[in-house]
């Protein structure tokens, strides 16, 4: 076998996809030809390194693993509920699902999922019985969400956010049409956080809220929500505190802290995995920066 012929085959050879006779022929040639052997070794080196760097770059954190398991469980739960629902409710569900694109169900069920798996991971006994009996979260009345459901929903969008629909800063104002209030894109560079993207929190029978995702250099996630506070009473889910003469609404739920402030009918809320004081500090910085002019 000539060196030239080998050059057209060695990648296939390394892939193990050559017929065995050719494999043997090639191997024999490589044993005798230093030039080709070195060249094949180079190709092999690229593969070895590509594999190493790709996996170095993609370490699955416990956070991610937990989030994915939570999302999967939520999906399983949703599917289960869909299959076990009586026909007339399924009809209503179908109508609702068409409207909400399943967003609410998935995210609300994610709450159950995340809770279950967090329970498992911290060594507490799994409360599968309790979960199976959990009342379905599909709203069957025309009233809006209760304070607890609302808080749950907002935390869902922080804990297991769907892919952002908007990732270009100049498109953020497009969200305003749905949200009904001005949606700023404040820089959190001072806090070492970079904007990642944004989208809508679909709040059933209320106006959607905008959410903007940030990530700090040390991999903490920060979610900023901007919403019409007249329509979405998130602050009613939280505890009112007065910080430097300004009311801040704070809450701590499912391991995340959330803080909200209201300005001229607009609600600004921040959810983080940091403590409540940090979330409150962030939301105060944001409201004062976006409302000052």
């Amino acid at each position: 076998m000539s060196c030239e012929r080998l050059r057209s085959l060695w990648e296939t050879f390394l892939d193990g996809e050559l017929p065995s006779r050719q494999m043997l022929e090639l191997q024999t040639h490589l044993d005798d030809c230093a030039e080709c052997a070195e060249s094949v070794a180079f190709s092999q080196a690229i593969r070895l390194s590509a594999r190493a760097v790709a996996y170095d770059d993609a370490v699955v954190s416990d956070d991610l693993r937990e989030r994915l398991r939570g999302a999967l469980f939520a999906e399983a739960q949703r599917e289960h509920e869909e299959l076990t629902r009586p026909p007339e409710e399924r009809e209503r569900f179908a109508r609702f699902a068409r409207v909400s694109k399943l967003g609410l169900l998935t995210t609300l069920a994610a709450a159950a999922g995340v809770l279950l798996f967090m329970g498992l991971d911290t060594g507490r006994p799994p409360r599968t019985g309790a979960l199976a009996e959990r009342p379905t979260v599909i709203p069957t009345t025309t009233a809006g969400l209760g304070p607890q459901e609302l808080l749950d929903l907002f935390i869902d969008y922080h804990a297991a956010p769907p892919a952002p629909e908007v990732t270009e800063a100049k498109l953020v104002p497009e969200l305003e049409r749905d949200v009904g209030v001005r949606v700023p894109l404040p820089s959190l560079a001072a806090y070492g956080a970079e904007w990642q993207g944004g989208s809508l929190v679909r709040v059933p029978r209320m106006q959607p809220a905008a959410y903007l995702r940030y990530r700090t250099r040390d991999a903490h996630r920060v979610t900023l929500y901007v919403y019409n506070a007249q329509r979405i009473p998130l602050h009613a889910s939280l505890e009112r505190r007065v910080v430097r003469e300004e009311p801040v609404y704070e809450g701590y739920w499912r391991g995340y802290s959330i803080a909200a402030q209201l300005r001229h009918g607009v609600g600004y809320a921040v959810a983080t995995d940091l403590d409540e004081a940090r979330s409150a500090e962030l939301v105060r910085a944001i409201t004062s920066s976006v409302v000052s002019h």
Partner: protein
Amino acid sequence: MTGEAEPSRPPAESPEAAAARFETEFLPNLPALLAVAARLTGTRAEAEDLVQDTLLKAYRSRNQYRAGTNPRAWLMAILRNTFLNGYRRRNLERRVFDGPDADALAPGWVGASSLRGIRDPHSGALHNMLEAPLLNAIDELPPEFKMTVQLADIEELSYREIADSMGCPIGTVMSRLHRGRRWLRARLLQEAEALGLVEEAPSAATSAPVNPPVQLSRYRGKKGAL
């Protein structure tokens, strides 16, 4: 919406059991999915979103998985579709492969003596100064080439499995691999030259000698020394 009129069918297993079974079977592929997603999307946050969307879609269509086939190839097919349907816009700009320079980087023949500095003699992998350039070069590949090369080189799927994952003929897989790898080699040689790792400059774009000299005695001597 036709499916909703059918009578309710009680699920065979609890959601806990269904999710757990899915996890046992498919979650071992999480690092592979994340590795591919990270290169496709370019940011960690997007890669995580892509993996999550992929797993949820896979869960919903888990009945379509054919037992006995490679679960990784099946997941990669879903990852690819998910990526193409929602994440692709920013990656659409045309790249090196479509421009007039497409072949300017085709490597000429590079002799064994000049290649030697490129590898780490102990691990057989590339010199560690070339790891960052390698990642950059992979990132520069257009998505379909990138994913093909990744599935072959990083995930070690067979041509058949890659073709199934990518929804294209085996011939297309082979052609993408050929061009993608040629590009990677050329880029790495350039970098290696810039870093002073190779002794002589690879003569890019000029036609190389077809039959390089065979230096048998030197090779045997080297083998003996190992």
